[in-house]
């Protein structure tokens, strides 16, 4: 009986000169089979799409300077530039409204409301230091059209499916993009122990081997 396997794929540092689908094909084509799922780190997809900016290129507005003060510093939006980025991506008034509602929600014991309301980029933007050199001095947005990227990977590589995921060592595995027919919750469970490793390991691609076979066997039982 087939077993699930996780194969991290090492690459060189990818930049906005690279195409993520071409890269996966170049580095992992021979390891990918029709029963497998290809997972790729969302920040790397974003970087290949050129979705990053240096703080020096931003001109934070007054509202960003004030609102960032109400976000704990551990979060990317706790910096004035992280807040400015999310305002530019999602709209400043939406962010303001979400923050006010989020603060009231917190008063009644419900946390995470701000991130639910402020738009996807609020949870995906990586602040300075969030990515390895040479992007450690950049803010990196979440990827654009992640579902389309996943679908393109699936079509080109002939695998069972593909996903764009935001995974870290703190047991967070957020599925950002998914090809058709996959269940985000199941993929998230498989990736929860962060097979991508840390950034310096340079393994932004993970192949989940035998996914279809294992899922079929489990459905049959």
């Amino acid at each position, binding site marked *: 009986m087939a077993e699930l396997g996780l194969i991290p794929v090492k690459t060189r540092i990818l930049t906005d000169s690279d195409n993520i689908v071409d890269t996966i094909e170049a580095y992992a084509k021979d390891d990918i089979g029709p029963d497998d799922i290809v997972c790729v780190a969302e920040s790397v997809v974003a970087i290949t799409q050129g979705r990053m900016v240096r703080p020096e290129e931003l001109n934070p507005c007054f509202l960003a300077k004030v609102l960032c*003060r109400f976000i704990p*510093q551990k979060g990317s939006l706790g910096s004035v530039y992280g807040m400015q980025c999310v305002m530019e991506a999602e709209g400043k008034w939406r962010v303001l409204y979400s923050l006010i509602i989020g603060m009231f929600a917190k008063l009644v014991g419900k946390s995470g409301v701000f991130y639910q309301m402020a738009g996807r980029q609020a949870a995906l933007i990586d602040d300075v230091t969030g990515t390895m050199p040479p992007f450690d001095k950049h803010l990196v947005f979440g990827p654009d059209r992640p579902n389309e990227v996943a679908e393109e990977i699936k079509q080109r590589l002939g695998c069972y499916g593909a996903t764009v995921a935001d995974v870290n060592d703190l047991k967070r595995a957020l599925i950002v993009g998914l090809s058709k027919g996959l269940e985000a919750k199941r993929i998230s469970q498989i990736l929860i122990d962060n097979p991508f490793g840390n950034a310096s390991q340079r393994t932004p691609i993970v192949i989940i081997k035998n996914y279809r076979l294992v899922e079929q066997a489990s459905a049959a039982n």
Partner: protein
Amino acid sequence: MDFLIVLLVAALFLVVAIWLYIAHQGDAEIAFLVNERTPFTLVEKTQDTAVFSAQVPFINKGTQDGIIMDAYTRHLLPREQYDGVAVVSRLELDNAPRDDGYFEAYIVPIGTGRAVIVTVKLTAQNGDITAALKEMPDMGIDIVYQVLGRTPWYITKAPRIVMKQAEILTAVGDLG
């Protein structure tokens, strides 16, 4: 009219409250403790080169976490003053040494700090570093660094480090 006054007072109260909150929150304040640096020691010496290094501690004495986005050395030895050596200098974090001159952005939590290692390579223009060092004057070295905290980034300089000739000669003498 009364309603408008109440609204105005409430808005004013809110503005003052937010201002006080931000003022109380403060910001990161990263300082290089140049006076607590170690003396320059000799790392390597050849016929025409000598490499020295010293550790310079830094600390975040502010009230918020801060990031050193970039940091680099600026040595100051104009040829009008002395042209006997060519100088190359760089710095790196003590816990993440690297020899490529790149400074990886580093988070400095409140009340903590580390040290940077400042490395200076001197190459004698006439091929004899021992002779060149005997004539070398004191040399200033600035640490220039870019800070990001709760407020917009800024670039500043640590108080100037002076690499004294006596210090260099002592270090070379230490090699025996």
